[in-house]
């Protein structure tokens, strides 16, 4: 099981409380986790990554195992703790706005 923690606005949009659980993946990456997330919750399409280009939206960041992995390649393997479900993959809204 892969665990994903979403920011509040996206939990509301997806209609979930707390963490999201996704099926195990052999070697999860940012891309494969987000693909699975969007497949399970289509309302999230376009809200984390742009449609078409899959480019990360400017005010979104990704954390795993206490590390900011936002700027890592979308195809880099995620830490083993995320793959095993010991640690969540966190989608974070940057501090911005008013």
């Amino acid at each position, binding site marked *: 099981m892969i665990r994903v923690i979403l920011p509040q606005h996206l939990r509301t949009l997806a209609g979930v409380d707390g963490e999201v659980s996704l099926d195990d993946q052999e070697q999860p990456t940012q891309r494969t986790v987000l693909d699975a997330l969007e497949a399970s919750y289509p309302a999230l399409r376009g809200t984390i990554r742009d449609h078409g280009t899959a480019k990360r939206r400017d*005010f979104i960041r990704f954390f795993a195992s206490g590390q900011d992995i936002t700027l890592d390649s979308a195809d880099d393997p995620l830490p083993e703790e995320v793959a095993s479900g010991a640690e969540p993959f966190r989608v974070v809204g940057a501090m911005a706005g008013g």
Partner: protein
Amino acid sequence: MSRVRLLVGTRKGAFVLTSDGTRDDWNVEGPLFAGWEMYHLKASPVDPGRLYASQSTGWHGQVVQRSDDGGKTWEPVGNEFAYDGVPGTHQWYDGTQHPWEFARVWHLEPSLTDLDTVFAGVEDAALFRSVDGGQTWQELSGLRDHPTGAQWQPGAGGLCLHTILIHPDDPQRMFVAISAAGAFRTDDGGETWRPINRGLRSGELPDEDREVGHCVHRIAMNPSRPDVLFMQKHWDVMRSDDAGESWHEVSGNLPSDFGFPIAVHPHEPDTVYVVPIKSDSEHVPPDAKLRVYRSRTGGNEWEALTDGLPQSHCYVNVLRDAMSVDDLDPGGVYFGTTGGQVYASPDGGDKWTAIVRDLPAVLSVEAQTLP
């Protein structure tokens, strides 16, 4: 007895205000979509239970919501607004060319006749249409592909398509307005468009007859006389009697002809409402008095409507989509302010009452008359 539902979009969520036909007592529900910018909500005239809402934030971009039960429950629908083909460029503030980039939906206009057809006016300016209730969107690219497209330049609020009017007798004819390009008309259901800006004078443009480059803030019509259009331009209140072929100024005795919204009375096609604002550099009411001005002569002669509105120390603005009328008799007029007040006048503007006073800044108000 008929009822009225006001769909109010704000900087931090949406609110639904309902009343019976007396429009004396109001029930306030919300916020819906708390924390999101709600640029616009509008109901389908085909089914009063079908509502569309434009929801966005800087973090998560654009979402479109749809309700099929009058706003009790909502469902996110399609939010992919892909420009048709290679988008190309438009003019940027500094005169250079800038790629067309989708930012948000400013205005949603449901079809007058088909429940699942709805139009979206977006920034950067383009018109999209959905024929499946908002699930998917296709650009009507004949508008943006007009030969003047590369000359379109954003206003201070962005290059936004904010007004969509559908001709009630001829669904092939539609009007749209773009800041700061101008007004456009189609006579073939949106396939091709042409600018309709003859007669507009924008002081900053050296060429008085320039086809585009006019900062149109809002256009309004009365459905009983749909080829008569009223326009609040950046400066100047304008009127067209020939579906936009030509425009003439009807600012008359207004204390300022700068403003954003304009509305026409539901039953009196020569009764028009504007909210004068001091200037484009200050965006506050003249003399710190919030006054709606009403013309009963189709323009030029205007009277100040002040009963119930603050007449001192008032520095709010009324944005372009934040004024609306209902269909009751007598006709009701409504507007919301950047200070969070929503005012109602069930007697066509003679007296005003604040339904609510402390909402987030109001972006849009749509009045829906319910059976």
